[in-house]
């Protein structure tokens, strides 16, 4: 593939970087990156990856845009309320950069569809809001052998880590299973400072681009935790767990499964909340 003059102009600040150059920009143009969740984390990731010229961006989300999303989900604008998130996302991505192909999956990620969808991509970005889906993404990336950039945000705290299956610690190496229902204040009721989605989602996009380019040192075997109140990052070293049920020496998880309740671990379920505070 050859870039047009316009593309060379568009990507010139990348091409100027010795670590990227024309060769690297072509890798970006050929890359296929999947965003699971077109919400808080998915929004900044989608916009920066689109701006970077990623060849194909996949968006999985079954939701429509809600007014309460707009405080942080910058892929969606006020007129999008009530519209499909993947469609709204596709429009913004292509308005920013028509070079980008967008594949839309207006569905929930399940054990039934995950491997088929993941197999088409080079890197997966976790931008979901519940533990069942986070574990499912972790497991599916392991079975599909796809690098995963995990992210999580809650209140004023965020976390990112990169997982290269069979090489670095996976999510289950650290957290064996979703927390018991009702224990972890998370998701809908706990709240989140909107900018945190931008900080963590943008780091996720950075990690994905590094993986595509094959440069730098990935955020593997490290959980990067960010505290917005203190404006402080901390790195926690983690290791592959030989007893991990998924990627350990004697795995007990040998195929994908749906862990039932997608809102396990949340103290308040979205369907029991009054509409006014539902996210």
């Amino acid at each position, binding site marked *: 593939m050859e870039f047009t003059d316009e593309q060379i102009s568009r990507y010139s600040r990348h091409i100027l970087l010795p670590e990227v150059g024309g060769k690297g920009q072509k890798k970006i143009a050929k890359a296929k990156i999947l965003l699971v*969740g077109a*919400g*808080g*984390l*998915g929004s900044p990731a989608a916009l920066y990856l689109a701006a970077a010229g990623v060849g194909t961006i996949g968006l999985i989300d079954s939701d429509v845009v809600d007014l309460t*999303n707009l405080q942080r*989900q910058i892929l969606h604008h006020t007129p999008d309320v009530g519209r499909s998130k993947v469609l709204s996302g596709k429009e913004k991505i292509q308005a920013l950069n028509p070079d980008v192909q967008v594949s839309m999956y207006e569905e929930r990620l399940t054990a039934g569809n995950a491997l088929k969808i993941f197999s088409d991509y080079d890197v997966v970005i*976790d*931008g*979901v*809001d*519940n*533990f069942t889906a*986070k574990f499912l993404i972790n497991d599916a990336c392991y079975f599909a052998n796809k690098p995963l950039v995990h*992210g*999580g*945000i*809650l209140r004023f*705290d*965020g*976390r990112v880590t990169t997982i290269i299956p069979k090489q670095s610690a996976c999510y289950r*190496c*650290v*957290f*064996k299973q979703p*927390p*018991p229902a009702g*224990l*972890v204040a*998370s*998701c809908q009721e*706990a709240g*989140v400072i909107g900018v945190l*989605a931008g900080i963590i989602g943008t780091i996720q996009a950075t990690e994905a681009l590094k993986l595509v380019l094959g440069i730098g040192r990935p955020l593997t075997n490290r*959980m990067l935790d960010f505290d917005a109140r203190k404006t402080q990052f*901390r790195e*926690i*070293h*983690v*290791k592959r*767990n030989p*007893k991990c049920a998924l990627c350990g020496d004697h795995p007990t998880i040998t195929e994908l499964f749906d862990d039932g309740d997608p809102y396990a*671990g*949340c103290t308040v379920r979205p369907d029991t909340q009054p509409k006014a505070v539902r*996210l």
Partner: protein
Amino acid sequence: MQVKINGKSEEIQGGTVLDLLAAKKIEPQMVAVEVNDKMLERDHLGTTRLNDGDQVEFLFYMGGGR
């Protein structure tokens, strides 16, 4: 004795990791614990005794993203 908890030095009573969790009112099921860079199995929280200078990391679940 002094231990470092999530990077911050703290004076604690001693005892096991489970005692520390109880003192901090942290439900063991909602946290993954590392002591000196080693992840503890949940069954070992009550048998792992803390020593002066240990580095303890509490990793809480962080589930949001949307």
